[in-house]
């Protein structure tokens, strides 16, 4: 454990940025706002890098395998047995998270300078964005679960602020509200989980929990499973899994860089991070892990089916995000924690790139988002096209791009891991095929073929400025080479990524005895790898067939299965179902019972009653003041008599 006073600045720089921009934003020139905001995040990234290198060096020189850097700011609260410090930790896991979050955030900040250039609330945007980065960095570097929850809630808040950034549009404001409310439902479960953890383990510190969990909890016991599932409920809200994913597609109402940052690369990954952080706890509850894996796999394939037919470029990417997050949960659910984080990292690269690329397209087409009104942009937007292609290849899992390595590891582990199952693998494979298909559908419809854009729009089509294309290229490079840190042994690599995180994982370092299970040879793994590549190529080929070779095929298929098509297009009517069975009843109960009955009649009634009582008492007392002096004197004399009587008796 190394005390490192600079850790606090990783988290605090963006907060400072947000504060300065909020207070002075309308008085300082725009360029300064953009530079300041990006600068604070860049500084955080550099500090995070410094911390990572310091940690690496320390361990390399013989330090403890589980060494970490720590920095305590102050004691937040000390009540009875509970003591919560504002304290940051940079260990193997959080260093990876800090680098990913700060790095991708920096790139997106720079991109935003260009994207939001014409907006009238330029400084408010950057203030919110910096605030978000602050909360997210707080979330990943907190050393205890309560502080992490502060960050958790904070990113939810910033998500609301940024989704509803253009709040004058009612629909956009409603989207922001929806995100926050759905999130809060999950947070309810999360909070209960925290309470149970403290109650039964006596600590809220992550290292303390990892230590206590194997002793204080019964493996597979009801308590362990309950805690794990409650925390997972929070994760389904934050990371958009079934059943609380409904806010994410609506969140596309926010500015595109926001979608890139929050709803692709960072905030939505918080749930995955949380489970990996508490991996020892989860390993004590195999039933809960099974639930996580199943939900993840189902969400992956479910969201992929919806993404197949969406026509808004951002909606496709939104469902893609939900689907890829499902993969991450599948990974952690079967105990492949490092695979989950690996995919988190590669996904943040290529998904952010996809969103920023979409933003570039939207920007070029003066606001058009419907892919049916696009096409033929390959030559007009070359940088956007090639970077988008790189990201699409990555997400489809085509080697040797990063997405292949991370997704493939998940697929393999979902089959081969002790808690894996061939069914999970099949579902994940199906999702992979669909992913490849709908992503290439998106690519082809947007960039290839004839130009379907409106005449007026076509005239203004232009490649984005350098401040937007350089981030695209940066992310593209990362999407292509990012897999190098995690090349599996089956292909001759050392899987450095896995070994970096292994000392913190309960099923790797011996904290929780492994559940046994079969051991497969490299040959089997290789075979599975070929299968997944083949599946991905199938998806790509089918997309090419439907959208380049024979453009009418897709519409023909839609016409031949109208019910299925409508079902997918309308996202299985889940929003409508939730509305009927949850939203409207709650609104009715709130209006007629909580408001009209309880608030108006009970509470207001109580207050009014007090008022009426005082008035009544006053009226009675006023009868004493008749104005007649004789009555007063009678009262006086009565008093004297009573006193005398009391004295005599």
């Amino acid at each position, binding site marked *: 454990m190394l005390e490192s006073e600079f850790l606090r600045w990783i988290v605090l720089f963006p907060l400072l940025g947000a504060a300065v921009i909020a207070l002075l934003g309308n008085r300082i020139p725009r360029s300064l706002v953009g530079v300041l905001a990006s600068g604070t995040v860049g500084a955080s990234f550099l500090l995070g890098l410094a911390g990572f290198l310091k940690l690496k060096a320390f361990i390399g020189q013989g330090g403890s395998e589980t060494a970490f850097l720590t920095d305590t700011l102050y004691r937040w609260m000390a009540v009875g047995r509970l003591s919560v410090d504002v304290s940051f930790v940079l260990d193997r896991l959080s260093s990876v998270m800090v680098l990913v979050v700060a790095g991708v955030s920096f790139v997106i900040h720079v991109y935003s300078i260009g994207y939001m250039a014409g907006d009238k609330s330029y400084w408010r945007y950057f203030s919110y964005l910096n605030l978000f980065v602050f909360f997210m960095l707080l979330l990943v570097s907190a050393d205890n679960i309560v502080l992490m929850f502060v960050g958790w809630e904070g990113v939810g808040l910033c998500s609301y602020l940024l989704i509803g950034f253009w709040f004058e549009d009612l629909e956009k404001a409603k989207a922001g509200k929806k995100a926050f409310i759905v999130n809060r439902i999950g947070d309810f479960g999360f909070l209960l989980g925290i309470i149970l953890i403290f109650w039964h383990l006596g600590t809220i510190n992550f290292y303390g929990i990892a230590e206590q969990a194997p002793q204080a909890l019964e493996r597979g016991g009801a308590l362990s499973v309950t805690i794990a599932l409650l925390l997972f409920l929070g994760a389904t809200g934050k990371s958009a899994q079934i059943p609380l994913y409904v806010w994410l597609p609506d969140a596309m109402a926010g500015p595109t860089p926001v979608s890139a940052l929050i709803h692709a690369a960072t905030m939505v990954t918080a749930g995955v991070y949380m489970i990996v952080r508490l991996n020892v706890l989860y390993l004590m509850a195999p039933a809960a892990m099974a639930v996580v894996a199943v939900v993840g796999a189902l969400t992956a394939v479910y969201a992929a089916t919806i993404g197949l037919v969406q026509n808004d470029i951002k909606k496709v990417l939104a469902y893609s995000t939900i689907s890829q997050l499902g993969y991450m949960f599948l990974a952690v659910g079967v105990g492949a924690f490092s695979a989950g984080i690996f995919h988190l990292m590669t996904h943040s690269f290529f998904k952010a790139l996809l969103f920023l690329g979409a933003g570039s397209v939207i920007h070029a087409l003066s606001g058009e988002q419907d892919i049916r009104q696009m096409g033929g942009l390959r030559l007009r937007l070359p940088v956007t096209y090639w970077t988008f292609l790189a990201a699409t290849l990555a997400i489809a899992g085509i080697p040797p791009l990063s997405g292949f390595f991370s997704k493939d590891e998940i697929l393999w582990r979902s089959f081969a891991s002790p808690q894996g199952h061939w069914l999970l693998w099949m579902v994940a494979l199906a999702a992979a095929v669909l992913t490849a298909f709908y992503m290439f559908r998106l690519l082809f419809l947007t960039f290839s073929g004839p130009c379907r854009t409106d005449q007026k729009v076509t005239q203004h089509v232009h490649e984005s400025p350098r401040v937007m294309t350089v981030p695209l290229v940066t992310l593209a490079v990362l999407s292509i080479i990012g897999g190098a840190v995690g090349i599996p042994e089956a292909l001759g690599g050392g899987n450095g990524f896995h070994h970096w995180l292994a000392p913190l994982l309960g099923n790797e370092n011996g904290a929780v005895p492994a559940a046994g299970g079969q051991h497969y040879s490299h040959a089997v793994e290789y075979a599975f790898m070929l299968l997944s590549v083949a599946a991905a190529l199938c998806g790509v080929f089918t997309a090419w067939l439907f959208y380049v070779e024979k453009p009418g095929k897709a519409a023909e298929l839609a016409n031949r299965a109208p019910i299925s098509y409508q079902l997918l297009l309308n996202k299985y009517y889940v929003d409508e179902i939730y509305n009927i069975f949850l939203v409207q009843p709650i609104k009715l109960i709130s209006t007629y019972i909580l408001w009209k009955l309880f608030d108006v009649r009970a509470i207001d009634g109580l207050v009014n009653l007090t008022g009426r009582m005082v008035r009544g008492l006053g009226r009675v007392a006023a009868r004493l003041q*008749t*104005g*007649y002096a*004789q009555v007063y*004197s*009678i009262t006086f*004399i009565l008093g004297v008599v009573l006193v005398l009587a009391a004295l005599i008796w």
Partner: protein
Amino acid sequence: MIGLHELLVVSAVLFVLGVAGFITRRNILIMFMSIELMLNAANLVFVAFARHLGRMDAQVFALFVMALAAAEAAVGLAIIVAVFRSRQTVNIDEMNILKW
């Protein structure tokens, strides 16, 4: 000889008469007379005890009370004159300006 007991009884009777007069009469001047009556009843008690105990303190106190009564009567009558000048009445029921 007139005993203490008798004097006290007379004094009590006088006091009660004063109270009764104060409560029942409507004319404010008569009410004032009743007040004086009550004060004198008290005086009588003082003097009775002075005679019974053979001390001068009580007699001096009775003089005090008389002086006080005089002063109070002066002020009170001044107020009555002022009220009469504005209301043209000495009926206490008509000097009530409370609304209810």
